[in-house]
């Protein structure tokens, strides 16, 4: 097992493609997306979900520690413009044939 970084982003669903592009540009090509996330942030409730298209997505991406810097640079402007939050933490990856750290 070895250390990798976990990126968690919660944002409005319309930002999704922009954020995934941002991750991709930063060299983070793997991700998982959970849709239909309700929530409350600084811009008020996102409760109507798919009715008013104001629902959130929860994006998880695991990457190598050195990729964090470009990710921050690419994602921060999006958060500043459209809202949403991004957090980074440490996790250990179980080595498998194809894993983040083996790339």
């Amino acid at each position, binding site marked *: 097992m070895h250390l990798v970084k976990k990126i968690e982003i919660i944002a*409005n669903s*319309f930002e999704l493609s922009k954020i995934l592009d941002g991750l991709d540009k930063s060299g983070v090509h793997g991700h998982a997306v959970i849709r*239909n996330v309700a929530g409350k942030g600084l*811009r*008020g*409730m996102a*409760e*109507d*979900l*798919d*009715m*008013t*298209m*104001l*629902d959130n997505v929860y994006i998880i991406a695991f990457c190598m520690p050195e990729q964090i810097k470009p990710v921050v640079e690419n994602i921060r402007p999006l958060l500043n*413009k*459209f*809202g949403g939050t991004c957090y980074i933490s440490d996790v250990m990856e179980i080595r498998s044939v194809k894993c983040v750290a083996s790339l």
Partner: protein
Amino acid sequence: MDMNGNLIMSNILNPPVLFFFLGMTAVFVKSDLEIPAPVPKLLSLYLLFAIGFKGGVELIKSGVTQEVLLTLLAAMLMACFVPIYTFFILKLKLDTYDAAAIAATYGSISAVTFITASAFLTELGMDFDGYMVAALALMESPAIIVGLILVNLFTVDGKREFAWKEVLQEAFLNSSVFLLVGSLVIGFLTGEHGWQVLEPFTQGMFYGVLTFFLLDMGLVAARRIKDLQKTGIFLISFAILIPILNAGIGLLLAKLIGMSQGDALLFAVLCASASYIAVPAAMRLTVPEANPSLYVSTALAVTFPFNIIVGIPLYLYGINLLWR
């Protein structure tokens, strides 16, 4: 006034409107009733599909006459005029971003209000033309563009860079407009033959699905009502008076170009209604500075219920007076 009262009553005693009330009541008494996602989205896709298809089939019957073109022109006109004049009213109390976003919301339309009005007409046995669906489709997008131009003109950092490509895409290719127009075209292409095979699905279930959908709309609208406290009396009055005004202008225009009574009602409803789906989505993307709870809540928690319950019969009353 008696006639008007009657119309309101016969409107209110319709299943769709009563289920809308039921939805609102559920929220007020804190019942845990909810229509789980993505069912509301499915129902709204169905309604757009069915109304678009029907409109297309009827359009091929009527043909594209001068009447049709005049109606579409009037629709276009109102879709551009409403966001401009309301913007200046809203600017009296709000900043440019919020004013433009709300103006765009009211310049656009609510397909569900239109559909509810058409169901009401069907019940009263009043005819309306299939090409009104084309007007519906046509009125959804222009306000988004007008709103953005207003933001561009009235904010200090004059040269705001809009991703125009993205904006136009959002305006003209968002899922409601796309599905509505697509279904309309397909209805037009397949005509009577396509209609017959799809009829049990698009016609038979239509009223029931609308009823069920309005139950959900009641839930959504009522949940939004608590947002209204922060909105203030100015916006709430706006959200009731402007629809009436717009409907009035719409009716005069309709009379002028000689629409039928049924078409005139639908046109008035289009002018009076505000968008709570397409425009909010576009505005969050393009004017993120505006506060979504302002434009969503006024459209959804005030204007929508007002139109469904009072507006539709009220505008019909107006038609009774004007067309007499």
